[in-house]
């Protein structure tokens, strides 16, 4: 049958010559190419021990930022969740109580903030929508897990460490 679109290409199959029929030249040629690659630069890296250099505009895991005084910037306005095309973000807001001023910047804060990393497509729209400069996709590749529930990242994984926490961590390492 003739193709209607005219874009079909029919492969012509000629009978093989003697050299092609014995296969050995082709096999040795292929082995030669494989052997040559042993002396070339490796294209793979030993992830996660080694990491490739990321591009400047790489978008990885989200982090919820703190301001210069270590207060959480997020005010649970919900614009990231609204802009999210994959419906990956959800949150519950709460009112800041007296005595919590050093923890949260605004009078409202996100008590629960969850991102489903399986839904997230890392488009960066949440980062763009955020009026408080609270969320950035500046982290590494999201690590793999065995269970689906472990991909729902809460505030414990998303909020960046405060300066005191960072110093404490350094102290442990030193």
């Amino acid at each position, binding site marked *: 049958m003739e193709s209607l679109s005219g874009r079909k290409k029919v492969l012509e199959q000629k009978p093989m010559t003697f050299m092609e029929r014995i296969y050995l030249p082709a096999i040795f040629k292929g082995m030669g190419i494989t052997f040559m690659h042993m002396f070339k630069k490796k294209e793979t890296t030993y992830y996660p021990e080694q990491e490739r250099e990321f591009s400047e505009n790489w978008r990885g895991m989200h982090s919820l930022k703190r301001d210069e005084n270590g207060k959480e910037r997020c*005010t649970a306005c919900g614009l990231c969740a609204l802009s999210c095309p994959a419906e990956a973000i959800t949150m519950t807001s*709460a009112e800041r109580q007296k005595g919590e001023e050093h923890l949260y910047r605004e009078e409202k804060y996100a008590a629960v903030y969850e991102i489903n990393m399986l839904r997230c497509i890392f488009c960066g729209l949440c980062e763009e929508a955020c*009026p408080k400069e609270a969320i950035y996709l500046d982290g590494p590749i999201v690590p793999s897990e065995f269970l689906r529930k472990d991909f729902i990242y809460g505030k414990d994984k998303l909020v960046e460490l405060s300066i005191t926490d960072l110093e404490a961590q350094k102290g442990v390492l030193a």
Partner: protein
Amino acid sequence: MSDKIKVTIDGIPVEVSPGTTILNAARQIGGDIVPPAMCYYSKLEGSGGKCRTCLVKVSKGSDKDPRPMPKLIASCRTTVMDGMEVQNITSPEVVEARKGVVEMLLINHPLDCPVCDQAGECHLQDLAFDHGSQATRYEFDRRTFDKIDIGDKIQLHMTRCILCYRCVFVADQITNTRLHGILNRGDHSEISTYISKAVDNDFSGNVIDVCPVGALTDKTFRFKNRVWFTKPVEAHRNCPTCTGKVTLWYKGNEVLRVTGRKDTYGEVADFICNTCRFDKKATSDWVIEGPTKVARTSVINSNHYDTLQPLPVIKKNLVLMAANKVEFEKAVK
């Protein structure tokens, strides 16, 4: 009853009865030519004339005296004359003046929309988005107040108030005694109750509905959810004190908030009582009528772009313009 008189607003003629204000005449036409209003509220007697957002230009006073009015006038307070010609969005002067009004209104209004519960249904937000400029020229600190509780269900956040006086008119209208008013003058003006006394009237909750900004908010809804994540549903119940016609704001199966039914101009049809507003928050309390119609431009209908922004390459190329004709026609509201 005298005859109807004819006025022209932005070139559209309309016949209205004498004594109608320009704003209401424009509302009879509807559409884009209706001047925005922050303080005028058709259900409240005496409201209007304070915010100056409804400024229009009268290019012809009337048939008898065709001289234009010397200055821009507040359309909510000016009644129509026979043969009057009004310019609203067709006059660059009005557009420019409205931009100035928005800037003035925002001088003391905090830009805490991410925190504010009114965001998404805030008239000032819409107004600033449609008519305002992106930046402010004001360099000084905005005035701030502590939050005040008016009763146990209403919170007054005076910092956000734009002094439209609507809530004062509600308080005046629903009660015989004066309970709620404005203290001090000028820049120091402040909405307050008499010696911080609670407004304990059955209809006091309506100050929440009439407030165009987030100054008076429902404490039972405080920080519960964002307006655009909740689904409005019309419902009614047999209420002994009010008409019982309300809008329920659902999140999942839960009623987060009950408000009066608002029309296109954000004005409630009927004032509802506090029992309906604050206490009846179960679906079983209500007879559901159906989903509320939400304007296409509302943030509740987010992510739908109403104007097509063609790429520069399409604008130059006539063939591409013709090919995208259907899409261009869709963009027309």
